[in-house]
C-alpha cells in the first residue's frame, strides 16, 4: 500500500523520462477520486452508512469553484473554503433527514437527495445547465503555489490525498472513530451505553461530505470544467465500488479500489465502445464471487502463507 503511494510520489519523474504525460493525467484522476473514495470509506466502511449519493459532494465542490470563477473570482482562498463549507452544509441538512432512517431506506434516500441536487443544477441555465461550464483559470493561491503549472498541481493533489488518508487514520483510532465504528457494529448497544449515536453519525457524515467537496474542488480545477454529470448517481455507484472493491473499512482500500476501477475503465473504454457491457458483467461477477474486495483477497493470501 505504501508502495502505491510511493509510486504516485515519483510518477512525475518517471513519466517525464518515459515521455508518457498521459500517465500523469491518469494518476491525477485516480488521486482525486481516491480522495472522494477515502471520504466515502469513512462513513461507509467504518461507519456503516451506505450513502449512494456521495458524488453530489464532488459536484458541489466543483460548482463552488466554478460559480465564483464564472463571476471572475478565482481566488483559491475563497473557492476552497466555499467548497468545503457548501459540502458540509449540504451534508448537515440532508444527513439530518437521512440518518433518521436505516438500511435500505438510507441508501435510497441518499440517492434521492443526490439526484435532487443533480436536477437542481441541471435546471440552472445560467451555469450551463446540462452541459456545464468551462473555467478558464484554476484557483489562484498567489505567492504559495501556481495551480496552472501541472507539476505543482500534481503535488497539491498528492498532498490532499496524503492529508485525507492521514486525517481518516487519526479519526478512526480516536474516540470519535470508535463511536462511529461502534454504532456500525451495534447501534442499540451504543445507545444503551450512553452515546447519542445520531449526533456522532451526523458529524461523521458532515466531515465526509466536506472532504468529498474538497475532492470536487480538485476535480473542477483539474478539468477546467464543471457539470451536473459529476454528481450523477452512476458516479456515486462508481465511488461505492471503489470502496468495496478495495475493501471497505480498510485505510488504503479505497485508493486501491480507485486504481483498479479507473484503470479498468480506461482499458475497457479504449477497447470497445460497448465497455459498459463488459464492465457491468465484471462488476456483477466480482460482487457475486469475490467478497471482501481486494484488501480481503490480499489478507486471505497472506493468511495462507
Amino acid at each position: 500500500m505504501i508502495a502505491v503511494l510511493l509510486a504516485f510520489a515519483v510518477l512525475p519523474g518517471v513519466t517525464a523520462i518515459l515521455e508518457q504525460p498521459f500517465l500523469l493525467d491518469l494518476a491525477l484522476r485516480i488521486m482525486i477520486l481516491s480522495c472522494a473514495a477515502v471520504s466515502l470509506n469513512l462513513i461507509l466502511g467504518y461507519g456503516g452508512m451506505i450513502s449512494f449519493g456521495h458524488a453530489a459532494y464532488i459536484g458541489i465542490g466543483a460548482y463552488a469553484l466554478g460559480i465564483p470563477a464564472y463571476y471572475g473570482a478565482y481566488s483559491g482562498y475563497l473557492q476552497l473554503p466555499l467548497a468545503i463549507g457548501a459540502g458540509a452544509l449540504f451534508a448537515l441538512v440532508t444527513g439530518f433527514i437521512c440518518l433518521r432512517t436505516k438500511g435500505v431506506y438510507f441508501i435510497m434516500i441518499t440517492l434521492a437527495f443526490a439526484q435532487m441536487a443533480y436536477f437542481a443544477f441541471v435546471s440552472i441555465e445560467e451555469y450551463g445547465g446540462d452541459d456545464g461550464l468551462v473555467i478558464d483559470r484554476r484557483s489562484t493561491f498567489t505567492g504559495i503555489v501556481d495551480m496552472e503549472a501541472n507539476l505543482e498541481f500534481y503535488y497539491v493533489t498528492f498532498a490532499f490525498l496524503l492529508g485525507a488518508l492521514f486525517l481518516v487514520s487519526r479519526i478512526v483510532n480516536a474516540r470519535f472513530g470508535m463511536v462511529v465504528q461502534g454504532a456500525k457494529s451495534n447501534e442499540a448497544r451504543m445507545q444503551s451505553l450512553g452515546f447519542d449515536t445520531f449526533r456522532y453519525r451526523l458529524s461523521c457524515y458532515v466531515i465526509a461530505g466536506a472532504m468529498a467537496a474538497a475532492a470536487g474542488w480538485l476535480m473542477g480545477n483539474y478539468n477546467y470544467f464543471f457539470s451536473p454529470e459529476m454528481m450523477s448517481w452512476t458516479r456515486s455507484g462508481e465511488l461505492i465500488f471503489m470502496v468495496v472493491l478495495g475493501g471497505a473499512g480498510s485505510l488504503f482500500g479505497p485508493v486501491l479500489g480507485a486504481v483498479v476501477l479507473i484503470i479498468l475503465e480506461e482499458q475497457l473504454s479504449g477497447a470497445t465502445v460497448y465497455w459498459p457491457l463488459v464492465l457491468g458483467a465484471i462488476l456483477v461477477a466480482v460482487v457475486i464471487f469475490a467478497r471482501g474486495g481486494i484488501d480481503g483477497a490480499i489478507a486471505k493470501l497472506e493468511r495462507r502463507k
Partner: protein
Amino acid sequence: MSAALLDVRGLNKSFGGIRATDNVDLTVRHGETHALIGPNGAGKTTLIAQLAGMVRPDSGHIRFAGRDITNLAPHARARLGMARSFQITSIFADMSVLDNTLLAVQAHAGHSYRFWRPVRGEARLTRPAMAALEQIGLAGKAAHGAGELSHGEHRQLEIAMALAGKSKLLLLDEPMAGMGAEESARMIDILKRLKAYKSMLLIEHDMDVVFALADRITVMVNGKTIASGAPEDIRADENVRRAYLGEETSGNA
C-alpha cells in the same frame, strides 16, 4: 430505609391486544439487589426495555435518581447512570474484548468529539476498562475478538460492559442465560461481589440464585406485579405459589 433509586408507577404497555405491562409499580432502593421473577412471557424483558428507554410506555411514570425519565432517550438514561446488560447477548462482535469495555468507559468519560489521540493510548480509558475485565475474569482475553468468545464469556463481557461505565443502577436481564454449571457459579460469585457496592435490578429464573442474592423480590405474571417484598414473604405468598407453581403442587415451595 434508603431512598428509592428507581421508582416506577402505573406503567402500561400494550402490543396490539396484548397487555405486556399492566399497571406496574416497582421500586429499587439505593444499594439493594432487587430480583424480578416470573414465568416466561410475564413481561419482564418488556419492562426492562421500557426502563432502559428502548420501548415507550403507553402510560405511567419512571423516576430515576430523582428525575422523571419517562420520555428520555436511551442514551440519555445511560448517561444518568443506568447500565443494562441484554438477555440476548448484544456486544460488538467485530471489535476486540478490550474495545468493547473501552467503549463502555468512554461513554462516561466526557464527550467523544476527539479526533486526534488514539483511544487505546488513553490511560484514563484503558485502565478502568482493564479493571472491569479483571473483575469479570476476562482480562486474559482482552485482545481477542469479541465474536470469538464462548457463550459464557459473552455473558461475562455483557456484565463487564455494564460495570465499566460509572453506573448507579445495573439492569441485568438473565445474566446467566445459557450458561453451564461452572460458568454460572463464577457469575454468581461476581454478582455477590457486585452486590456490595452496586444497586441492581436482576431478572433471573434460577430460584436458588434469586433467594441467595436478592434483598427484595418482585413477581410478575401476565404483565402484572402480583407480589413484592422480602424473599421470605415472597416464598410464603399464596398468590405467588398459585401463579408460579400452578394448581398441581400444593404446599412445597
